[in-house]
């Protein structure tokens, strides 16, 4: 599971969706790998406005990366700073959680990630 993906996910439990505590989900015991994926600069620049930056900062810190700046880079900054673009590409698109869990900050439910695939199927008592 990519770090970018985590930015669009919340708890699958219905009652958690309206809670601010359910986003972002918190990685636990995460094992990371890096894919070698060709960069698509236009996609990256355009996807950034869709990213919840505050949540991304939380996720990034929780995964043990250096703290991200408080504000997201502007389009101009990204287009003039090749390294910044590469760093974002690596964080959002190339970093994968291969094993571990995602924990809801509201209900505490843990979703397993195995072989890179997160499983959001709920036990019957949570549906």
């Amino acid at each position, binding site marked *: 599971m990519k770090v970018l993906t985590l930015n669009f996910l919340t708890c699958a*439990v219905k009652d958690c969706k309206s809670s601010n505590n359910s986003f972002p989900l918190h990685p636990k015991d995460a094992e990371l790998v890096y894919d070698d994926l060709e960069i*698509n600069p*236009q996609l990256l620049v355009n996807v950034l406005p869709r990213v919840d930056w505050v949540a991304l900062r939380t996720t990034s810190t929780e995964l043990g990366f250096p703290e991200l700046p408080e504000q997201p880079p502007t389009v101009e900054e990204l287009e003039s700073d090749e390294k910044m673009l590469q760093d974002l590409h690596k964080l959002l*698109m190339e970093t994968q959680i291969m094993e571990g869990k995602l924990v809801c900050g509201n209900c505490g439910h843990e979703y397993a990630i195995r072989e890179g695939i997160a499983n959001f199927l709920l036990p019957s008592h949570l549906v």
Partner: protein
Amino acid sequence: MASTSALLSSSAAPAVTRLAAADDDAEAYERAHVHGVYEAIAPHFSSTRYKPWPAVAEFLHAQTSGAVGLDVGCGNGKYLGVNPDVFMLGSDRSPALIALARSRTQQQEQESQPEPGASSAKAAPPPPAAAAAATASDVLVADGLSLPFRDRSVDFAVCVAVIHHMSTRPRRQEAIRQLLSCVRAAGNADAGGHVFVMVWALEQGNSRRGWDEGGEQDLLVPWVMKKSQQQQPKKQKQKQHPKKGLLQEGDKSDAPAEASGHTDSSSVFQRYYHLYRKGELEEDVLAAGGAVVTGGYERDNWWVVAANGPPSSSSRPT
């Protein structure tokens, strides 16, 4: 795609009566007649699914660069790489299909070094639309009625050949409601804010399945898998036999596959379908609180593009 139609029976499938059942019953029914079947037939099913429907491809290509989209019920992930300039999140109820989807997108990402574990997907001809290099996508396992996506967070969603597997009308409408809740409001400037849904049509006058207007809408449709097509015989055996009991109900009927002399070397899996009559998909969109933007019919399927209400169709250029 002769292979697909050959797998389906040529004559009418057994009709099933789906009364307004309690939700628990509906869930259990779908576990036996949808979820369990796809787990068991995943590699074979996947090898027949590589060609995108034109209406779906057109919808995906209309999305702008950097858009984030969902494919709910993505199966083997054949739509995840259609538009390389969008980021696609694919989900499916079947862990086996998602594993195939993942190895498939990894193959695209690491073209020169196919993984040994991806062998089951190799029977598939090379996916023409997805042959281009890197695909910005990810996949996960989730139920279409308990989606883990943040409200209003994505630009668009597609849901192809999924909702017709849900066995009550409230569940089908809830599935559409959940899709709509994930996408942002539709704007005038681009194709974002839209949900594309495609389902099997009742009106299939030009197909040899024999279904048409006025016919039974709730059916069990056999999927026939020959032994040679069961690529993991050992696993299949373990998985299949405990489920036999559940599938028996359908098997007792005069499924054409059995009637035509298939022996024990074939397995018949009965999948539940609700065939949509003309106009029904639009009704379900409205019942789900959505607005119909446009819709159509493509080779035995109804499709619709929906947006969050209030209606925005009038502001959309035609």
